[in-house]
């Protein structure tokens, strides 16, 4: 089967890969680029575990084809911490015990960062509705919401 040659940037680094037509961006990230931090929970866009941003837009990488990534800038969980420092959201998730099994955590962190980039001062309801596309079966969401609100506070310098 002929494979497509694709070039893109992932977390600021230029990448190139070959993929089959039907391979999703999620499969490309995990199987071709070996960036396994992005998780597959459903493969149908219902759980948000595979959340990434593409040219700044939050989406489920299982719903986009790898070939569509041509020329695009993709950000994944692997690029979230800057240098030696965790992103404030990552740190607050640890401090607030906002994760248990952790398999939804990369997607939720990516989604939460998108929220705070567009709305630095969300209400609790805004956090809950923004994260409604990300399923977590362990935490009951309480500590996740607290961590996001606390990270927002810190990032605003409030």
């Amino acid at each position, binding site marked *: *089967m002929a494979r497509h040659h694709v070039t893109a940037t992932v977390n600021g680094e230029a990448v190139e890969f070959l993929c*089959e037509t*039907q391979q999703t961006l999620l*499969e490309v990230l*995990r199987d071709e680029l*070996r*960036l*396994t*931090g*992005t*998780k*597959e*929970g*459903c*493969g*149908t866009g*219902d*759980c948000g*575990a595979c959340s990434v941003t593409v040219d700044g837009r939050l989406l489920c990488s299982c719903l986009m084809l790898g070939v569509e990534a041509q020329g695009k800038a993709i950000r*994944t*969980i*692997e690029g*979230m*911490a800057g240098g030696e420092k*965790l992103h404030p959201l*990552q740190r607050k*998730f*640890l*401090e*607030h*015990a906002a*994760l*248990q*099994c*952790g*398999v*939804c*955590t*990369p997607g939720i*962190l990516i989604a939460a960062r998108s929220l705070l980039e567009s709305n630095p001062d969300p209400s609790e*309801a805004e*956090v*809950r*509705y923004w*994260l*409604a*596309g*990300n*399923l*977590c*079966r*362990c*935490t*009951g*969401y*309480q*500590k*996740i*919401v607290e961590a996001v609100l606390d990270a927002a506070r810190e990032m605003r310098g409030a």
Partner: protein
Amino acid sequence: MSASTKYEDKPLRIVGTRPLRPDGVDKVTGRARYAADYNLPGQLIGKVLRSPHAHARIRSIDVSAALALPGVKAVVTRDDFPDMPVEYAAAGELTINYRDVTRNMMAREKVLYDGHPVAAVAATSESAARAALKLIKVDYEVLPHVIDVREAMQPGAPLLHEEQYTAGVSPRPGQPSNIAKRIEFKLGDIEAGFRAADLVIEREFNTKPVHQGYIEPQACLASCTEDGQVELWTSTQGAFTYREQCARVLQMDVSRIRVTPTEIGGGFGGKNNIYSEPLAIALSRKTHRPVKMVMTREEVFRATGPTSGANIRIKMGCTRNGRITAAQAVLNFQSGAFPGSSVPMAAMCTFTRYDLENVHVVGHDVTVNRPKVAAYRAPGAPISVFGAESVIDEMAKKLGIDPIDFRLKNAATQGTQTYYGPKLGVIGYIETLERAKAHPHYSAPLAPGRGRGVSSGFWFNIGNETCSTLNIGEDGSVTLLMGTVDVAGGSRAAMAMMVAEELGIPMDKVKPVVADPSALGFNFVTAGSRGTFAGGMAAVVAARDAVEKLRRRAAKIREVPLEAVAWKDGRAQPAEGCGVQFAPMTLAEIAKVAGKTGGSIAGHAEINVQGAGPGFGVHIVDVDVDRETGLVKILRYTVLQDVGKAVHPAYVEGQLQGGAVQGIGWALNEEYVYGADGVLQNPGFLDYRVPVASDVPSIDTVIVEVPNPNHPYGVRGCGEVPIIPPMSAIANAIESATGVRLCDQPMSPPRVLQAIGKAAGAGN
């Protein structure tokens, strides 16, 4: 080693604080490796062909076209696995039968549910494997099927197992039946109890199967060498039990299978039993290449989990003062395609919160054409308690007694005789009820049209076989090998904390590692809320064993009698009043010279943990019911639970919150929907709707601590109780808001509307 592992009330340095979890950074950075994240050079991709029928006899399977497809390296079917005799084994809360395990992982004579595996393929790519599945020809003789538990119990219902005669009935029935087993518990004289009652209420309840809904689908990677050595990476709650199960169905020695339990993306009881693991090993055995198998979400829904749906009848009587005189239940549980549902636990938990004289509980374990049920967080208890706590609420309301007062009048306490056997030890049910009654939520004003509900739950908690090794590193840092998988609740943190407390060193000097089964003696699966209780007990015993050896070593080095050496604040120092003086040695100082003074130091625990302490929880919920749409909105939710001792309170809160929200999903949204053809219609998160963040409010928690006398830190275990009360608490709140009692789960908008409409019609 200290002989006693009884509870000691002593000042604590670390236990009870909230340090960061050791597995945290890996999980927030994407480093944590789950089973699907593992890859090996040359690996093949395995996929499973599943039955499209609910019930059919397999006449033949032709795999020749699939094998001829380029890239396809092997196919396995029923012919590649030996048949197994009836042989029972423990696997979490539920008992398994190897005859059924081998048939569930790969159909033999018949397929028994939509999604039942029929063949598995290994190919060089996912697309080749999928293409190969389409080329496998299975000749089915489709048979009539049965999905509903009540229909399955009727004479003449389609039979799943022609040789299944109801066990537990005397004399042995003359006809086979889908009722695999009848169980019964009796205490006192149930008829006398009803005669003594001023008020008797009887209600029927129906619940639908719900799935554990872990976000990580089952995944594994297996590699089998030419000389039959197997390595297996898998997502499991019990690496030892998976090893044992794989070894049995593949007829191998357990020592030939090295299992690495990967980071686990949720389990909740659903990862106690093997599914694809033996298929991956068998495919690797044929190809001698690694085989990776990852389930899709659709496969997870169709063929793993769920918990039972049930039909239950509860009849209770009480005096006008609110003292329960009789409690009776009939519990009909779907077990799925093979026997072995959670009905025994459901039966034992139905009324165990109350001090009762007259009890009669009958349970039926019923096979139907659905996936074989798996354990799900307090298996069975939420179902039977939905009924019992609904009836209790109705009795309290009819008598005008506050629902918490009603429960207090009947509450179990130390010495209460259970109807299933033991007397209860030190428990905290009354304390938890009293804390609930005093909680501001319970007395907060309620707007008109809104409702408040209360319910409670009990779970046994368990101990069981547990082993741990504590290695003192040459620099004095410590590695704790634990064989009881951290199923995400944070037991690695909790065990590191207990070890640091015992050794008198900082927590960050203790590295907890979930070990593979080749490193330790047998550990039972992480089930029954045993992780921090039993795993923690083993960690403490191993730490105390190490302390004993450290004392001996210090005595040898300092040339003083052993009795003169005390272990305090992380060092060996002169025991008080021993009259001997010597320069104290820190753990690091002993570790540094350990190699030259007798060898490395390690502590061990190889124990069967006894003395689990039952847990009790009380939930309070406020709801708003939209009379036009039937939508129930949770406005406020409070969980109160006796956990014995919260080693890491933040993670205990996480258990209470997570369990409650799973229970809310069970109560309001979740259900398996089957068509008339016996095919599951909603095998995905779009149509099987688990709660999302915007569905739920803050879940407030109150940790009650009545120490378990049989654990050094008083731990009971806490993970399962919080899923038990939500269904009944919410049903009671809906009744409080609308005057309508819902007896069918889920209490989804159509059902709520229908119930309100029916009640209004009856009122007219």
